[in-house]
């Protein structure tokens, strides 16, 4: 039976070879990612990765789709994120209907940027895609404590500000 198992594994292996060929075949047809420097240049800001921030909601830019599940905090290898759910507000049930479970919202969302390594595990792990990298450039502080970002505060201030910008905040 070991021979049979070996043959089965070999066939599975051959199938994986075919899958690999298909992937590279598709990549062949995709456009180039590199830039022909110095004839063409890349502007510094459009690829800048700052600290993470909450993605403003589609309908209400002041609201986030975060459900305070804590996956980002668990994934972070540096334990830089602190998330706490807001105390839930139960809506009174209508006559004869079941009580709807209220959607959780974050009450506290802090990112300690002095520990963050910009690995992106929080962004990748979020089931709601509620996190993204901001473009908070030219940020310098005098005290380590000032490197902690309050994301809910930032989102509230951003409101309808343009996507990925510095949220209109002064660089201080």
């Amino acid at each position: 039976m070991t021979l049979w198992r070996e043959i089965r594994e070999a066939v599975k292996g051959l199938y994986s070879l075919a899958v690999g060929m298909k992937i590279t075949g598709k990549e062949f047809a995709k456009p180039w990612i590199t830039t022909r420097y110095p004839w063409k240049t890349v502007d510094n800001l459009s690829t800048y990765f700052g600290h993470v921030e909450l993605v403003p909601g589609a309908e209400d830019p002041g609201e986030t789709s975060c459900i305070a599940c804590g996956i980002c905090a668990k994934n972070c290898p540096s334990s830089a994120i602190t998330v706490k759910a807001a105390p839930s507000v139960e809506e009174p049930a209508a006559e004869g209907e079941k009580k709807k479970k209220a959607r959780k919202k974050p009450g506290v969302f802090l990112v300690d940027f002095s520990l963050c390594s910009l690995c992106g595990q929080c962004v990748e792990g979020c089931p709601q895609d509620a996190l993204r990298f901001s473009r908070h450039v030219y940020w310098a502080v005098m005290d380590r404590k000032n490197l902690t970002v309050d994301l809910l505060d930032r989102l509230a201030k951003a409101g309808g500000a343009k996507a990925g910008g510095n949220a209109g905040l002064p660089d201080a």
Partner: protein
Amino acid sequence: MNLGPITIPWELIRIVVALVAILLFIVVNAGLVLVYLERKIAGFIQRRPGPYEVGPHGSLQLIVDGVKLLGKELHTPACGDKLLFWAAPILAFTPIPLLFLPMPFARNLVGLDSELGMVLILAFAGLNVLALCLAGWGSFNKWSLLGAIRSVSQAVAYEIPLLLTVLSVVLMAGTLKLSTIVEGQGTWPWQWYWLRQPLGFCVFFVCMLAETNRAPFDLPEAESELAAGFHTEYSGLGFGIFFLSEYAAMIVGSSVCVTLFLGGWQGPFLPGFIWFVAKVYALLLTMMWIRWTFPRVRFDQLLTISWRWLIPLSLLNLVATAFFMKL
């Protein structure tokens, strides 16, 4: 042809003309077109342009690279065997035009339509192994020697399933003459031998990849990227000749595969030569595609594939072919 006291036989003139044409074919294809295609395909698969600056879309890059290789100093290791050291690249390249002689490029376009064409090719392809040995030994470098030993071991291991697969096709076709084998296949793809010997085709292709030190089996030459391989000590033109002979060997292998399994010059509507070149290029492009897809195979895995899988499979293929021939 009668030149007074000397009579030059017609066959000799034919062979010389064929050799010149073949050398032109090899140098243009292997040296210029193939290496350019390789670098471009590698680039596109990696989402980048490849050579782009020199000439339109980098087409003149190879010529410039050739000039660069020519301009380098030809250094010989001081304590090594000078004769063997410089014999190696010459020995690696010289059999290649010879291997193209019995190959039918079109219906009447054969250099030397020998009755033993297949044996000629297999015999001279074995000289590559000797060239590797000489290169490793003459370099006076421990790791070059080890690299050469490994590549010899690889070449020998993959020679066996190659021979067995070729034997199956020859058994089926009944002749060693390459032009007869091609004529035995039909015009359309379903009449070629690859459908009658599907296992043989796959095994032959894999063996061809390993024989030319190509694709996932390129441990000997990759080692020179890292530390040592059989051609580490060669500078400039010595390396250039090894490089050229590797690509020329690729073309030879693809041509043999096309002749045996893919119907040679047979094809609908277009003249034979165009079909032959098209099929050879299809195989070459597949080889390049494979190279930029798979990681390198570890040396013991390489030999395992040959001794534990390919040889039993090709033996099975041979026995099955003999069985069905008898029926």
